């Protein structure tokens, strides 16, 4: 095995283990903040995977947006909604057992399905050229194989999400609620 391959293999297994352990922490930890951090570590490992597969631009996006945006958002929400010392009690054993069973079943089933399928694998060493520019061209491509429509739709989605979140989480001032209550009584 060449050095490159050796590094590749080692990195794969190393980051794989880190990702799995961090994911386990994320789903089983009592303390929510530890779970959030576990999520962050998993996501960063995900970025590492992307780099291993030569999609470095995507890795950068992952770290910037997913870890830097979403995980931080989660932590804000944790701060805003915690009533006690950020510790939650254990869920019921039956629930845990059934969930474990579901996870195991799914895993076995999927892996069996995957292993039985013959994928037509062409592995080449690297993806084509500069990813960012190619991605940009694809996003703004108005032909039938272009992605300009999903791009516009997603921007609409983000707008709607932002407006919706503001509306949902808006706090009502006391006199406004009082006036509405008064109107209903009359």
């Amino acid at each position, binding site marked *: 095995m060449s050095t490159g391959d050796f590094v*590749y293999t080692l990195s794969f297994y190393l980051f794989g283990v880190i990702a*799995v352990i961090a994911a386990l922490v994320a789903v089983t930890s009592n303390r929510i903040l530890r779970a959030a951090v576990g999520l962050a570590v998993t996501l960063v490992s995900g970025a590492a995977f992307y780099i291993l597969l030569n999609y470095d631009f995507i890795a950068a996006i992952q770290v910037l947006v997913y870890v830097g945006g979403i995980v931080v958002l989660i932590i804000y*929400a944790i701060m*805003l*909604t915690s009533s006690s010392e950020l510790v*939650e009690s254990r869920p019921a054993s039956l629930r845990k057992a059934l969930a474990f069973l579901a996870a195991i079943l799914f895993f076995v089933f*999927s892996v069996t399905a995957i292993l039985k399928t013959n*994928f037509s694998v062409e592995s080449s060493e690297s993806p084509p050229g500069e990813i960012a520019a190619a991605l940009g061209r694809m996003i703004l491509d108005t032909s039938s194989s272009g992605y300009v429509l999903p791009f516009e739709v997603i921007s609409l989605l983000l707008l709607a999400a932002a407006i919706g979140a503001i509306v949902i989480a808006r*706090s009502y001032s006391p006199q406004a609620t009082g006036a509405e209550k008064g109107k209903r009584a009359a």
Partner: protein
Amino acid sequence: MSLFPGFMHWLVLSTILFSIGIYGVLCRKSALGVLIAIELMLNSAAINFIVFNRFISPATLDGALMVIFIIAVAAAEAVVAMAIFVAIFRSRKTVDVNKFNTMRG
């Protein structure tokens, strides 16, 4: 199975992460814990896209673009979910999913 990480190895890895996410969704008591687990699942789906793009059709970048979309949608969803949790917390003083059982019976 050789030790060299081939196509199948990648897929198994992402399946492991997805299963862990399933466990979390079904078992976490806090709503935010559930959200964290969902993000895990989305991330593992994204890894799947990249892997397929890399090994099955390396000539195009469709998979990579899908990952960008996934990240964007995950962000939007997390934002709305946060807003809802904050609003619920304001009235119920808790985000314990087991307490939201008005559909009982």
